[in-house]
């Protein structure tokens, strides 16, 4: 045993406590704080802008904005618009997309984290991430030009066999061309896949090794390991990833606009309906915003979409926050 070379006096034992703030700290915390404040202010400003622009049109509106299904906004002196039909198409197509995308994303994420050999998993994950970066106009083009006509036999079969169910009833547009919610929903689902997969994959990857080994040591098969450790651990992350995806689908504009056929008839809960989502409706009319009153009608619809995505994102957050992190 050697003795310690020199025993230094315990620091600050008899010195008065003095808070030293270094300039670097002060500058950085100032920058960070203002960035944080900026984003809050911007969101509030967007809300205020939407509200301020929408209110005059809402006052002039002759129809019930929330419950009317008609949309007459071209003539500023005779406004009669309601968001209900747009809202229904928006939510309906997004949820349809989500129902397709959720199980597939789960499968891909589990495959990448649990089953794929490491050498394959990495490049595969990059490709998935790349899909998220493809501009939505590309998906829209693909949906309208390639997918829509290809789906005709499928939709025809669904319509003739399951036509008694409201989902597959003959819709309000010509099904054979394929410009339906069915096509749009599938394209949206493809767009959601990378988002949901990427987040789920990261969550699943973080399943503690000791949990996995604990299950393996009990004689769990690969699937049982997934069921007893990976899924319970990643469930909250997966659900919130899906909600984030839903938020994306609700606001998707250009792809939906290209695909969906417009119609003057109302939405009837069929996948073979056409129509417009809130976002696609606004985009279609954007070129003709020559009067603030007319524009205000669309802005009011935009406000509804803004609030809707806000709520969906809040739900997504609540799944993460309400969940205690393991370990």
């Amino acid at each position: 045993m050697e003795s310690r070379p020199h025993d230094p006096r315990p620091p600050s034992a008899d010195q008065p406590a003095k808070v030293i703030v270094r300039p670097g700290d002060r500058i950085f915390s100032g920058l960070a704080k203002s960035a944080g404040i900026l984003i809050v202010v911007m969101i509030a400003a967007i809300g205020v802008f939407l509200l301020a622009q929408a209110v005059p049109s809402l006052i002039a509106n002759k129809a019930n904005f929330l419950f009317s299904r008609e949309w007459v906004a071209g003539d500023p002196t005779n406004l009669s618009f309601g968001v209900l039909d747009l809202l229904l198409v928006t939510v309906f197509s997004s949820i349809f997309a989500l129902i397709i995308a959720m199980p597939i994303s789960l499968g891909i994420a589990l495959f990448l984290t649990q089953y794929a050999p490491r050498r394959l998993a990495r490049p595969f994950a990059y490709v998935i991430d790349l899909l998220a970066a493809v501009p939505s106009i590309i998906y829209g083009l693909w949906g309208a030009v390639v997918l829509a006509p290809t789906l005709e036999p499928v939709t025809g079969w669904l319509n003739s066999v399951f036509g008694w169910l409201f989902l597959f009833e003959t819709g309000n547009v010509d099904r054979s061309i394929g410009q339906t919610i069915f096509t749009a929903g599938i394209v949206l689902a493809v767009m959601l896949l990378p988002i949901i997969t990427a987040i789920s994959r990261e969550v699943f990857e973080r399943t503690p090794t000791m949990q996995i080994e604990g299950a393996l040591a009990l004689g769990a098969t690969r699937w049982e390991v997934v069921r007893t450790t990976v899924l319970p651990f990643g469930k909250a992350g997966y659900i919130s990833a899906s909600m984030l995806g839903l938020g994306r689908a609700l606001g998707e504009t250009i792809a939906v606009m290209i695909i969906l056929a417009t119609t003057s008839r109302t939405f009837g809960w069929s996948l073979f309906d056409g129509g417009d989502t809130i976002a696609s409706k606004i985009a279609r009319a954007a070129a003709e915003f020559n009067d603030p009153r007319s524009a205000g009608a669309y802005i009011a619809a935009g406000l509804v979409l803004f609030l809707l995505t806000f709520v969906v994102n809040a739900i997504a957050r609540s799944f993460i926050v309400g969940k205690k992190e393991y370990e």
Partner: protein
Amino acid sequence: MAKRIDVKDLNLFYGKFHAVDGVTLSVPPRNVTAFIGPSGCGKSTVLRSLNRMHEVIPGARAEGEVLLDGEDIYASSVDPVSVRRTIGMVFQRPNPFPTMSIRDNVVAGLKLAGVRDKKKLDEVAERALRGANLWAEVKDRLNKPGGGLSGGQQQRLCIARAIAVQPDVLLMDEPCSALDPISTLAIEDLITELKKDYTIVIVTHNMQQAARVSDQTAFFNLLGVGQPGRLIEIDDTEKIFSNPTEKATEDYISGRFG
């Protein structure tokens, strides 16, 4: 229950790295064998190879024979999943399943094996928790999550989970290294009791622990950095700690290195 293990010329690899070289040893039934040695000497690797947990690490593989009552668990016809069902394992850090209740944690292995009868599961849960000296502490909160227990209780819960399936062998990988002295004592007492029914192999960094709980001790060592770990000697614990055959063992035991 309580089978013997014979390891014959076992070589273990992580990818190209030769981690353990030519281990041959025997573990008699109803006996505690301690693996000691400096960090990186391969003692945990050998332990993990005894229930085929070694190979779950990507790239890891084993060569040689591990006989459980004469049957090679590395034979090509043997399913590693069924090996792990008969050879239980307790890890360095307690790892109860956080989303499961205490009861469900204990019977997790049985549920995996397909037991669904609720009465049977309750019986087994109680027996295993009593066996792990945990019953008195948790009997009023069996439906609470296992993560809410203290570290020592969680480790005993993991032992209960391992013995609930009545394994032939119980492997323990430094089971007390994350625990305080009182919890450590509780686990050591438990090991002494479990010895009546199980064959136990324990890896420990704590030589006093090896001396206290084990009947025979195996000393592992490395010849140098990058070299594979080897079994230096295995003998009765008393002999290893009083009069070991190898000089390296004596140096390690007396604290001259490691």
